[in-house]
């Protein structure tokens, strides 16, 4: 693997910063506690940073302020009940959390959702990605001191949330996915509305591009900061946009065979060679555009038919184990479901994207400045519920 020059320079610089700290004058360090209640950590992540001046000597994230014990809770719940639980993991892209769990259960039961349900699932999946990432794009501005983008993001995310609510009834927690299909069909007029909303979101992407990504200050804050080389990213299990920003061409939507309709749409997986904060943010911007494209194309291809196959009224999942991961807004989200033939799962291992994505923080923060902590954290993009589960 070859590093680009910028990556190399930044990597060397961070190593040099390490070395310098040890050689230079004896200065007294300072331990700065960022969080658990701090405006930068959107949630309750705490970062303990040992500072030398404004430079970070080491930093360590402390998670767990929001640990809800989902893996334990799933063991006392039935399969339909688990769906309503897991969509609270990454609360910004809830529907996307349900899908891999349902797919895993379907795999064990050897049923498959009808084609119409698959397409609608994919559309809702991508809509929740748009809702999630558009908020990221706005939040990025706030982390960096620009206040306008976040309001635009909240405004435009609202269109998507309205759509999700219109179809599923739940604004944040749809609980719409069922083993064997979907709870309900789409309400009349929804497809037309969605087309309009997707256009608005595309405009939003352009606005953010002009307002934030095009801004020279923003670029100077982001470029060359927090470079994560591809091999390190794989070691830590970084996924989603974070991995693709390091040049790893890996997208679970494309690279595995799941009963979702991504192959019906013409879209592209974006990667970036730099692996810096800028690359991560930029990839997410591009992915939002791609998602809009996917949704726009799939809306015209919804086949007629039922949205639910025949499944027993009381769902007992046969004995077995299944692993299903999907490309969620935050990265690879997977469920390892072990069933013993009961009403509920025996064990569910939830592999959430943010947990891995944030475990790289001690590595990535070494030698950076305090303001860069914020940009790196923001660009790694985590949701507290997704770390702690």
């Amino acid at each position: 693997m070859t590093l680009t020059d910028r990556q190399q320079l930044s990597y060397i610089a961070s190593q040099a910063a390490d070395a310098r700290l040890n050689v230079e004058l004896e200065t007294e360090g300072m331990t700065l506690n960022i969080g658990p209640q701090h405006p930068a950590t959107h949630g309750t992540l705490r970062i303990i940073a040992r500072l030398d001046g404004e430079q970070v000597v080491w930093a360590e994230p402390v998670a767990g302020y929001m640990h809800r014990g989902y893996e334990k809770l799933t063991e006392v719940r039935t399969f339909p009940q688990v769906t309503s639980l897991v969509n609270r993991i990454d609360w910004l892209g809830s529907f996307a959390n349900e899908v891999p769990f349902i797919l895993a259960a379907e795999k064990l039961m050897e049923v498959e959702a009808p084609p119409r349900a698959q397409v609608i699932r994919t559309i809702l999946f991508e809509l929740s990605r748009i809702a999630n990432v558009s908020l990221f794009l706005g939040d990025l501005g706030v982390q960096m001191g620009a206040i306008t983008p976040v309001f635009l993001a909240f405004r435009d995310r609202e269109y998507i949330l309205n759509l999700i609510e219109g179809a599923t009834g739940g604004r944040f927690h749809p609980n719409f996915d069922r083993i064997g299909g979907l709870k309900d069909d789409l309400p009349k007029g929804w497809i037309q509305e969605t087309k309009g909303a997707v256009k608005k979101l595309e405009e939003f992407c352009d606005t953010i591009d002009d307002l934030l990504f095009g801004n020279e200050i923003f670029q100077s804050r982001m470029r060359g900061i927090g470079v994560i080389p591809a091999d390190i990213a794989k070691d830590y299990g970084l996924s989603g946009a974070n991995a693709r920003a390091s040049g790893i061409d890996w997208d679970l939507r494309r690279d595995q065979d799941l009963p979702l309709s991504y192959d019906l749409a013409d879209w592209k997986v974006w990667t970036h060679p730099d692996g810096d904060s800028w690359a991560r943010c930029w990839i997410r911007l591009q992915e939002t555009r791609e998602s809009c494209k996917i949704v726009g194309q799939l809306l015209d291809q919804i086949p007629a038919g039922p949205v639910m196959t025949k499944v027993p009224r009381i769902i007992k999942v046969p004995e077995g184990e299944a692993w299903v991961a999907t490309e969620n807004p935050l990265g690879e989200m997977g469920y390892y479901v072990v069933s013993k033939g009961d009403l509920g799962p025996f064990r569910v291992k939830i592999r959430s994207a943010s947990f891995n994505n944030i475990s790289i923080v001690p590595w990535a923060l070494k030698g950076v400045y305090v303001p860069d902590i914020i940009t790196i954290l923001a660009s790694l993009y985590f949701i507290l519920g997704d770390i702690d589960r």
Partner: protein
Amino acid sequence: MLAQLAAEFPDWYPEWNIPYWLMSILRVVGGLVAVLLPAGGIVYIFLFKMMSFMQSRLGPMEAGPYGSMQLLAEVGKWMQKEDLAPDNADVRIYKMAPLIVLLSTFLLVVVVPFGPQAYFTNFETGIFYALAVASVSVLGILIAGWSSANKYSLLGGLRAGGQLIAYELPMVLATLGVVIQAGSMNLNRIIEVQNTGEIFGIGWIGNPFVITQFIGFLIFMIAVQAELTQSPFDMPIAESELVSGYMTEYSGFRFLIFFIAEFATAGVFGFIASVLFLGGWGVPFTWFGWEGISDVAWWMNFVGPLIMFTKMFALVGVIMWVRFSYPRFREDQLQTFAWKVLIPLALANTAATAILKVVF
């Protein structure tokens, strides 16, 4: 006796006789108005309304018609809060800090002329004084940061100290061009020069220095932006990094004082910038056939402040517009920008002005 006083201070005493006590009251009231009115106006017009509109929302709407009394409600809220000080804080100093910051604003407004005779005092070296007292606020911010006994406050205070000092310099240098061109450090004289001057024989708009000193104007405005710690130079506050920087621990009316000081200082810097570059209270004197400042009609003392406010709001509007649009720099980028870009540019501008002054 009044006549005697008038004779003693012919420079600044109005033509008609106002008793001294009335004059004092007028000055106090005028000072409060000149500081608080811009602060309130800026907060309402820009912070509440312009920002909201730029974000496609309405802003406060409940208190008063169109939310216009919101600020009073906020003040009421802040006044009610307990005056807290952290346990480890150096309490006396801690409590003094916001007052020092506000003091610097009041000291600044003293030299700003609002009309041919409508000023508080008329120093010969007014601009020198203004730039000097502008740095008093740094003291307040530094001691606020230090005495709070909070790491975020400390980092914020130190950042503010470094930043304000770094941007003082380009500001001074940018002003230097104006002073050279005007040939005076007296603010009223600078206004007179701008309103009586002409550019290449075209005199109907006078010679506002924003045209001839455009680079200086840009540098001055950037420096003002940094002095006011407005985005993109808001690292001392940087809420996503340092919670609220040096203000983190303040609550109640001391926070209010910081808040007022922030926007009042914006207003005063707006006044100073309009004096230096936009012709201050004046309109081109040729419009009314005035030769110099002594010819200016008395009603300019009343119209002048309005013109000043308009210009100030326009300038502050730009400052706020930038604030609402830009992300912030990193601390080291800010310093680099000041020392490697702004200061050399300002020096070059000064040199060019000096040379051109000699040539023409």
